[in-house]
């Protein structure tokens, strides 16, 4: 039997680039016609490996996925060689994509339960498909509450979608920022995202929490929610680690016995507790 080289990727086209914040862009990427990825099951929270030949490869999460059409969004901050090149080359460029990989958000476990989303900054990107999926299958889930914090109002992603999120039946959106620069109007909260806990309505029972953001933020989110009576098994976190293969071989993303790329990137807190090299 001939094994397939797992590093071979498909050439995809960047259809659209949309600026979210000064250094965060959403790239709409399309698989070629006839690609077998078109029918690929996709789960929010999974990730793909995107590369530009000669520059390198990096893991990105999805921020949207169009079922059956092979078109997806990825929303990323321009920080390294791959992301800078993506930004500079803009629309029309070709990129290599392989995946999706990993364990996504617990969309099945969350059915029939309230969903609480706690996001910080760029951490909203992998949670956006969760919101879309809940909206699309509204009757399968209970209440939806979104707590979203960022450094400043300018750093909030998907701001143009906030109104439609609020329009989802039985859904709330609470916003907060660390600080408000002069000249910007802001009539929401100021402070870290956990300050929104006082105002939220989601109860510990029959609910699933999904959080993504800086690990130090998630540490305080977990701490706060546990104190309110949420169970470790109901708190799901998406972790960021260095990844060079995405297929549990290169070893970079290991946390104790776990590979973030394969066993995560989404983990219930109950699986992470007591493991090394974690802030949470």
């Amino acid at each position: 039997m001939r094994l397939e080289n797992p590093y071979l990727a498909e050439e995809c086209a960047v259809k659209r680039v949309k600026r979210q914040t000064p250094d965060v862009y959403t790239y709409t990427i399309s698989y070629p016609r006839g690609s077998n990825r078109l029918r690929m099951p996709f789960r929010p929270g999974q990730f793909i490996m995107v590369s530009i030949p000669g520059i390198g490869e990096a893991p990105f999460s999805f921020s949207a996925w169009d079922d059956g059409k092979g078109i997806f969004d990825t929303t990323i901050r321009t920080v390294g060689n791959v992301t800078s090149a993506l930004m500079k080359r803009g629309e029309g460029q070709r990129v290599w994509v392989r995946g999706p990989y990993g364990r996504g958000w617990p969309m099945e476990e969350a059915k029939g339960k309230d969903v609480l989303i706690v996001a910080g900054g760029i951490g909203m990107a992998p949670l956006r498909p969760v919101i879309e999926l809940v909206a699309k299958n509204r009757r399968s889930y209970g209440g939806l509450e979104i707590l979203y914090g960022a450094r400043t109002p300018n750093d909030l992603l998907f701001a143009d979608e906030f109104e439609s999120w609020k329009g989802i039946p039985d859904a709330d959106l609470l916003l907060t920022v660390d600080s408000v620069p002069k000249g910007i109007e802001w009539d929401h909260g100021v402070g870290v995202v956990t300050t929104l806990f006082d105002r939220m309505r989601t109860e510990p029972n029959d609910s699933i929490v999904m959080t993504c953001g800086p690990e130090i933020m998630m540490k305080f989110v977990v701490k706060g929610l546990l104190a309110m009576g949420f169970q470790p098994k109901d708190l799901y976190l998406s972790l960021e680690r260095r990844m060079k293969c995405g297929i549990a071989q290169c070893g970079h993303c290991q946390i104790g016995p776990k590979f973030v790329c394969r066993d995560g990137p989404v983990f219930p807190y109950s699986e992470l507790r007591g493991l090394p090299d974690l802030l949470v």
Partner: protein
Amino acid sequence: MGGKVIAKDSLGEFVSKLSERYRIFGPRKKGTEWIFDEVRSAEEMDLRYSTTILPPRKFFIPTSERIFSFKMDGGVEEPEERDGPSLIFGIHSCDLNALLLLDMVFLEGEFPSPSYARRRERTALVALTCIDPSENCFCESMGTGPSPAGGYDVLLTDLGREYLAESGSRRGEEMLALAKGRAVTAADLEGKAKAIECAKSKFKKKVDLKGIDELFLRNLDNPVWKRLGEKDLACGICVNSCPTCFCFDVRDQLDFPMVGGVRYKEWDACVLLEFSQVALGGNFRRDRAARIRQFIGHNLGWGGASQFREFKGRAKCVGCGRCIRYCPAGIDLTEVVKELRGI
């Protein structure tokens, strides 16, 4: 499976017969040490070697390996596989068991590695019972030696003037058919058992594996890690000489006129600062203490945790002793375990 007893002075002839079919790699002296290197005759090998600088994994996961070449304007080419059958002669039990563990990572996962699979397939293994473990060896503690239970094509055991040669596969049977020798008797098998017992009496290092995954996870904040971090040079020697460490980096390399290049893998090491670095300089193992804890923990602690799917509950470490032998700072993982146990 069958076997033969080969007189030591017939070994050369056996090797030369094998060399007609295989490229042979055996232990060869290099300065004060040994390396696995291509040999053309039995005389070039030193079968009394203690251990080699690099483990045999270098034959299956080359230190640097092209994944594919590419052209900037499109087009990808996978490396061509031209190498014929090869044979590793004299691999010790620890290193053989290490390959069986690597198989779990590169063959038994969801995405098997085609290059690893090909190399494993085309490489015959002639193992050697270790009759003279070095002062740094502890394979007995790890259940990986001094003589392997399987995984070899042929297993040689030094019986004094002769070698007991047992086959462990059909390929091994075919290989042994090339050897001149006599039939195996009960006395020969007894001789092997005695050689193993004798070897076992020579081990100076031991690791108590009882509850070791819990021991490590309970001791993440033990001051021993901070102390090791102060001593540790983060030079990567332990990882690169480890027979079961499998981590690698993936990079692109452009040729100069920049019309094409290669994507390649290179061995990487968790004890290096850059290993865990993410965008904007974030690092989840910034301290040397956390990195040496990762190396030792992965090898003996959570590497052996039953939840660690890679190794099906077995420890990653095979007790070859290389990381102890070659550590400039004198860090010894068997001593670290004792310290964690408060001994």
